[in-house]
């Protein structure tokens, strides 16, 4: 024979579930991740010294804030793209080729950098998917009223079920 207290278990669990989701959901609404920005990481990231075996889809570093959504795109490779048209940049030691298929740096003419395409296409912010909309003040009030109603309903129903006819 069950005690009267045992009748309260399910309503209590119900209230705890609902209140738990409500309270949790009222906090941070960001799908937090350290590995990348908002645009996915299907193309793996890498560090310049990494061997193919160490390449991963993430990496665990902070977003480098370069707008590409990646965390490991080597900034070093961007060193020569300073958009100053007509300025020659001589190859430096860091870009001296070592592969046998590549001609020695000395025979390569100085390579000035020319910015060919000027940005004209505006890219609006990504459509929001994650996180709930900003909560107006009346929502928590409605929640509390709703919780009370649900609790009352559940308790009443539970009591009815266990009342001998």
């Amino acid at each position, binding site marked *: 024979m069950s005690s009267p207290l045992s009748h309260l278990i399910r309503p209590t669990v119900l209230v705890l579930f609902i209140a738990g989701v409500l309270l949790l959901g009222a906090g941070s609404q960001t799908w937090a991740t350290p590995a990348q920005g908002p645009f996915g990481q299907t193309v793996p990231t890498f560090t310049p010294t990494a061997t193919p075996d160490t390449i991963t889809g993430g990496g665990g570093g902070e977003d480098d804030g370069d707008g590409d959504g990646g965390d490991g795109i080597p900034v070093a490779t961007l060193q020569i793209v300073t958009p100053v048209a007509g300025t020659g940049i001589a190859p430096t030691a860091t870009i001296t080729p070592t592969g046998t298929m590549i001609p020695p740096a000395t025979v390569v003419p100085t390579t000035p950098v020319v910015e060919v395409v000027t940005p004209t296409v505006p890219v609006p912010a*990504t459509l929001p998917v994650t996180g709930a909309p900003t909560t107006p003040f009346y929502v928590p009030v409605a929640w509390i009223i709703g919780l009370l109603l649900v609790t009352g309903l559940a308790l009443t129903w539970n009591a009815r079920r266990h009342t001998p006819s």
Partner: protein
Amino acid sequence: MLLPGLLLLVLGLVYSRTLAPGVTWANAGTDSGDLITAAATLGIAHPTGYPTYLLLARLFQYLPLGDPALRTNIFSACMAMLTVLWVYRLIRRIVADPGWSGLFAAGVAALGLGLAPLFWSQAVIAEVHTLNAFCAAVILSFILSTLTSQPEIPPAHARLQGLFVGLALGNHVTIALLAGTWLFTSSIQTPAQQRVRYLGQQVLGIATGLLVYLYLPLRASAHPAVNWGNPVDLSGFWWVISGAPYRDLAFGLPQMFLSQRLAAWAALLIQQFGWVGVSLGFIGLLYGQTRYRQFVGLTAIIAIAYSAFALTYNTADSYAYLLPVYLIFTLWIALGIHTLLRVCPQRNYSRLALALLLVILPAWPVPTNARQVDASADRRAMDYARQVLTEAPDQAIVLTTSDLDTFPLWYYHYALAERPDMFVVVEPLLEFPWYREHLRISYPALTVPEQPGMGRQEQLARANPSLGPVCRVELIDVSPRLHCLLEE
């Protein structure tokens, strides 16, 4: 038949109104360019390859409507509608009430799933998630069948179900959780003397379905334009199907981010169904009046497992793995609605009033959700790719670095064969021998340095003096830029 037809009509209108017009970045859909291009060229998409998805998407790309990207988006919408229909059918079985209360609960809950923002967002872009949701719904119904069926189960059924599960694994490997649950429940439910035979039939079916992965080596050997991992040998094949480059991401979220994700999990749940839906779901879970309490309990365990995977998967878009959770929550909501309607007294139209309330309250956020997930105006990826293709110099070697700047270019360059004089090179992939080999085969005129390291742009320029300039694509904040190295 009227209610399922109505569901199809409503969702068909809603999805077609908000469908992405082509390749898109909306709704975390940056992979759409990769998937569409791989399907259009019968190539190999990023690991784990998704052969089932690619073959079905390829079929849809024969539709005489729009371009291949739009047709693949339509495929997602169709899978979403099929999922909703299957969930409706599943609810009818669970609720087992032929009266209007059962119909109402199934209809409202299934529609709620179809209009839940995350589900909706994936229905309007080319992604694997709606097909995965459909597979999840079907396998859930298999599990329900095994829990309720009589001892005598025709072996042919087991084989067919296994075949479906194998094909589902060919779409997304996360379905393995449901597949395992199905095998486990059926082995428990089957009488001991039939267990081995029955399991054998199931495994045979799964193995047959998994043959879809043969698509990978078969197509890779033809050197398609998109050929991740070049899975012609065993190591390449394993690299693709095991998701090697992303393996560290599974359960890889640093602990410090977990509490934030847990909060976001709750916020997302509220965002999907509203507080009314969340309350109804938990009422259904705890009080749902059904003969299949065992099944409902099992779905709770499955939902927790999927939530744990999504929470700990270390990417910014892993919330998409919550779709099976929302599918299960929909079943609970239906049980909750049905339970409340049965408890509510019949006099004075109070049931009707309650039913109206249960429709109006969840419907309230639908316009807001529509604005959030509407991808119909998203032309960013298309405009970006068009601009690069228009303005890149002759025979330019275009270097890309991320999903965002790579996949839309792949679509126009490979699938639509635009600017065939151009060379698209994904810089991070140059680290992989298979990619360097793939570039040599795809672009015979291009010389790819064997050991790229620092300064790839310069290396490519030096190795290819007779070709056009090497241009790096940059997407800084809101604007795409091309920076090209030109020889003097």
